[in-house]
């Protein structure tokens, strides 16, 4: 942040981050590596009449004793060169309060923008927010990737789930089993059940210690799961309208055969990351029962594991750090992504490119709690589809848990159109809905008018 003082022709330079060119421009003057700010006075050599004052303090609510009213009142204009939105928002509020012009700027890769915030003339910086960056829809990432970004998003998500989120959940459980399990029971939903399953799987199975374990893990990801998918949706499958299921942009995947001859396959056993996993594909029983019952069962099993584990046992959650070349994080993510790309015949990328793309992805897959959509009055399948259609969504697949209730490519599912959703869930998904339960959740996979996959929250259907 640069602030020009009134009348004196001087400049105050704040904050630690300067753009890359200025960083290198001024670093030649720096006496120590972390005093980039102190190099700013050196630029005054070019213009001796310019007085420059360099300060290291952060500019935020905590430093208002330093950057007090007098400081702000004496400014003529503020120029931003910040690296995060929060600092910008704070600076904007101060400029608004003290009625100072703010020249805002930002860069991202090869892109940049600048915004002029002038008192009494323009809106201030905080008046509008950028829309969240468009994420690839979940089913694209989970099952139907068609470019390397999808593969990297998936890899990033898997990484986070495997080595950060699940171990953190395990520790939360181990640190306070009673509170943790009570919270799960209270929530009593598919989400809680899912989380508990992962925690149990993590604690219960052996570490991936042997070479064989790693190969099994590889085969789970890049062979077994693919085989499962193409069993459900074979290459020649077609939708109910007769069009090929695997038409663009969907790409038909092929399972990979682990081979020691392929160096990219060998990267996985070499990764020095503590990965807790089980040796076979996760198969949930298709006969799904009431979540509450399953949750209780899972908790019981967790208790067993906890007592078997040594006292004070904790896992070590690992946070993704892409810039440390010795931690193998990027190697693992790039490896996962490239193998997945190979499954789907998508061009692979080198580690550098993977690093750039992965650095921009904010993983937000199955771990976040979504908003829910609610549909009442005991609808039929047809009514559900129409309700979604009114929102501009073409739902081609409806499922409850892991059970498929409807898919537009199966002609016999047309018979289900006028059936009540609650009946389908009881008969097809074999779900037991106890008397006190008035709703159940379904997941709908949708497309928009242009055939692009659209992610939507789970839909809660109320039947009584």
């Amino acid at each position: 942040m640069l602030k020009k003082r009134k009348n004196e022709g001087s400049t105050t330079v704040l904050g630690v981050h300067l753009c890359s060119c200025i960083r290198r421009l001024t670093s030649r003057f720096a006496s120590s590596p972390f005093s980039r700010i102190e190099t700013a006075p050196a630029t005054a050599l070019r213009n001796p009449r310019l007085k420059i004052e360099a300060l290291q303090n952060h500019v935020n609510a905590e430093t208002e004793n330093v950057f007090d009213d007098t400081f702000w009142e004496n400014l003529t204009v503020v120029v931003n060169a910040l690296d995060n939105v929060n600092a910008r928002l704070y600076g904007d509020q101060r400029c608004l309060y003290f009625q100072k012009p703010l020249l805002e700027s930002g860069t991202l890769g090869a892109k940049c923008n600048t915004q002029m915030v002038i008192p009494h003339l323009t809106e201030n910086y905080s008046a509008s927010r950028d829309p969240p960056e468009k994420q690839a829809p979940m089913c694209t990432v989970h099952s139907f990737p068609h470019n390397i970004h999808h593969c990297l998003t998936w890899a990033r998500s898997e990484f986070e789930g495997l080595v950060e989120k699940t171990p953190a959940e395990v520790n939360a459980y181990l640190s306070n089993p009673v509170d943790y399990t009570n919270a799960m029971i209270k929530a009593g939903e598919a989400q809680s059940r899912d989380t508990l399953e992962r925690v149990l799987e993590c604690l219960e199975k052996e570490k991936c210690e042997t070479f064989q374990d790693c190969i099994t893990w590889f085969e789970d990801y890049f062979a077994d799961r693919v085989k499962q998918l193409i069993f459900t949706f074979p290459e020649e499958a077609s939708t109910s309208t007769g069009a090929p299921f695997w038409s663009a942009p969907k790409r038909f995947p092929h399972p990979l055969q682990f081979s020691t001859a392929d160096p990219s396959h060998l990267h996985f056993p070499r990764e020095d990351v503590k990965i807790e996993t089980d040796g076979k594909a996760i198969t949930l029983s298709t006969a799904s029962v009431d979540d509450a019952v399953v949750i209780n069962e899972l908790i019981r099993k967790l208790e067993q594991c906890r007592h078997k584990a040594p006292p004070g046992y904790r896992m070590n959650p690992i946070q993704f750090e892409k810039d440390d070349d010795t931690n193998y994080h990027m190697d693992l993510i790039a490896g996962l992504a490239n193998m997945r790309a190979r499954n789907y015949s998508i061009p692979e990328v080198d580690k550098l490119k993977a690093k750039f793309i992965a650095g921009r992805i904010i993983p937000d897959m199955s771990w976040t709690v979504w908003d829910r959509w609610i549909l009442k009055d005991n609808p039929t399948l047809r009514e559900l589809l129409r309700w979604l259609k009114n929102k501009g969504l073409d739902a081609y697949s409806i499922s409850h848990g892991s059970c498929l209730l409807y898919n537009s490519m199966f002609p016999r599912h047309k018979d289900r159109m006028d059936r009540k959703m609650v009946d389908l869930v009881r008969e097809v998904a074999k779900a037991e809905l106890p008397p006190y339960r008035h709703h159940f959740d379904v997941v709908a996979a949708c497309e928009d008018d242009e055939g692009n996959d659209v992610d939507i929250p789970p839909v809660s259907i109320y039947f009584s």
Partner: protein
Amino acid sequence: MEITSVMKCCLKPNIYHQDPGEELTEQETALYDRQIRVWGADAQRRLSKSHILVYGMKGTITEFCKNIVLAGVGSLTLVDDRAVTEEALSANFLMPPDENVCSGKTLAELCRDSLNEFNPMVRVSVEKGDLTSFGVEFFDKFDVVVISFCSLATKKLINERCRKLSKRVSFYTVDCRDCCGEIFVDLQKYNYAMKKLDETTECELQYPSFQEAISVPWRSLPRRVSKLYFAMRVIERFEEAEGRKPGEICIEDLPAVLKLKKEICEAQSLNESHIPNALLERLVTGTREFPPVCAIIGGILGQEVIKAISGKGDPLKNFFYFDSVDGKGIIEDISDPTPKG
């Protein structure tokens, strides 16, 4: 006489299709880490093998030099034998403020000294002499030639010399006056991969020479073509007709300039309103460069040269204008649409 150091020559005509060669050193990878994430290691390698020639060390060119030196080109050769003047100090931030340091050195030498410090990994050197007297073989040493504040005759001459070579030498001119500026680009026949969504398609662009571009009849150009294009051509023609050096013009010349504008418009069957008198007045009086505009034009120019060397990104074709009065940056494609037999 300073001789430029021995440089690796590009043997194949089109750098984009040339193998970039050895890997970057560890030092290069560390220093250029942030930008490698933007344009990739391959592009960085090509940059580090590229040789740039620059003429006319004014404000815009110094901005451009700073940009490409920090980006890590292979070498940069500067040509400008003029001594330091008050005017040079007003827009050239590479000049040391201490006058004692300046005395006895040419503009190019002083700039070289500063640029060397910016990035010791780039070989910055000086070539003395009159650029227009250098033969075609001199230009063969470079991949990119950028000239600034040149007369119409010089622009045409240097452009033709570049075009005579069997390999492609990218040619750029840049001029900033008052608070606006113009860039001209000639990449001759340029092949590159254009990225659209998930696909890349091979594209070929055919650029006209400067002579060919300015020969395109004005009445055949679209109505909205930037007024700066026409205004710059009038000033160019005036300075040539009067035997002036570029920028050797002042307010007293305005009536003669307006008269020339009238003649040219008549000859080109172009309505005079396409070249506002106020704009010509600005260009006639504001012969000094305006530093913020130098930064913008120098930035765009740096970006274009990096694109041309790396083969990445859609190159600008073929004129760029910026005017801080309206803050607009405009690209104009001024080329003869009729295909040549």
